């Protein structure tokens, strides 16, 4: 696989996203708004809410990127891309976007919350972003339109936000691992156990699911013989 088969789709995903100024601004401000609105319930509660709300931004951007690209992706695969190359390119840019946005947001939360373990708070927020991209790409590959995609996002992240992390249902959701890390960064008595590993395993599983779905939807080859034979 030549590197530009991943880097060019990544660059174009970036250009597409960066030019959506309003959407980009809203996506960046959204977790901040959650954090600010929750401050009245205490800085620790606000940090967990704001951290998990990062999923709205990064997963939202990922869902939108996947759904916007779907009709063009078919043509690109027909032209010669493998579906996973396009997915990988999109993943590359969105992870970069997520890591940068969540780093800035972590800094704001660390300054505002002064947690006992600021590095762990940052890792927790970064982990939300890292998990959000494959989650968004999987939802984007599965959902028929933006409406269904956004409703799934609101449902999953909303439930994660409202549930106590010790509940079984919370443990089944994709952001349980980061949630435990965020809680541990604020209160060392909360055990983190395998939460980091669970989060990374969840992100990997979501990526595999997204790859499988886009592969299933990819055009089928009609070409027999050598496609490069000149006319």
């Amino acid at each position, binding site marked *: 696989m*030549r590197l*530009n*088969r991943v880097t*060019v*789709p990544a660059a*174009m995903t970036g*250009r*597409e996203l960066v*030019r*959506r100024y309003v959407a980009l601004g809203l996506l960046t401000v959204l977790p901040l708004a959650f954090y600010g609105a929750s401050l009245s319930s205490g800085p620790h509660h606000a940090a967990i809410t704001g951290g998990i709300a990062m999923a709205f931004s990064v997963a939202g951007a990922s869902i939108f990127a996947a759904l*916007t*690209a779907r*009709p*063009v992706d*078919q*043509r*690109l*695969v*027909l*032209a*010669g*891309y493998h579906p996973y190359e396009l997915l990988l390119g999109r993943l590359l840019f969105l992870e970069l976007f997520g890591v940068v946005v969540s780093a800035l947001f972590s800094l704001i939360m660390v300054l505002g919350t002064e947690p006992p373990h600021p590095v762990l708070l940052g890792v927790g927020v970064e982990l939300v972003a890292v998990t959000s991209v494959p989650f968004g790409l999987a939802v984007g590959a599965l959902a028929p339109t933006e409406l269904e995609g956004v409703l799934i996002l609101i449902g999953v992240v909303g439930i994660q936000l409202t549930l106590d992390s010790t509940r079984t249902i919370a443990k089944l959701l994709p952001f349980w691992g980061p949630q435990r890390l965020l809680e541990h960064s604020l209160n060392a008595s909360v055990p983190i156990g395998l939460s980091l590993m669970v989060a990374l395993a969840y992100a990997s599983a979501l990526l595999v699911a997204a790859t499988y779905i886009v592969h299933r939807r990819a*055009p*089928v*080859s*009609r*070409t*027999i*013989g*050598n*496609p*490069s*034979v*000149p*006319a």
Partner: protein
Amino acid sequence: MPANDGTNAPLLEAVGVGHSYGRKLVLNDVSLSVQCGEAVAIVGENGAGKSTLMRICAGLIRPDCGDVRARGRVGYCPQIPGLFDLLNADEHLWLFAPALGLSHEQVLGQGRTLLAELGFPVGDRSQARHLSGGARQKLNLALALLGGARVLLLDEPYQGFDRGAYVSFWEHVSGWQAKGLAVVVVTHLLTDLALVDRVFELETPRGSRSQFEASAR
């Protein structure tokens, strides 16, 4: 006389293709073959399955039954332009370059030549969302032609074209035929039918999938 590649095998061959959307039967036992240097117009009333047949031939839809084969690269121009609204024409070309095994310079050279031939304002840095309907369609068509496709599947490719661009399009079809390409054009315009070698009329299947399956048994 169309150019020939030295074999009698068609460049595109669809045999016994059938497809349904849910219970609605769209295509039933459709067979189509297009030779090297041949231009075929696909006609039929609304809902006859013209676009579905094109998508099946392009490989975008798996038919319920039947088989489709193409010799050489297939260029597909969808009815609704498949473009990124916030990318400009050059960025679209660049995006297609790695897929086609072309360098950035090669794809810009080839793409801009195609766009200029179609009357697209080459060098226009406007994002696709700011282009006119005709200009978007020209970009859509140029992307289908990139990389030396041998089979062209063009689904109402001139929507939004002005008269000059429309005439130029058909001149290009003649040129592609002369180069030995197989060209399939979905059209509703009667004037187009005189410009192709053959007209393939699709009839709307009457009845549901289950009724056809029963009659087939």
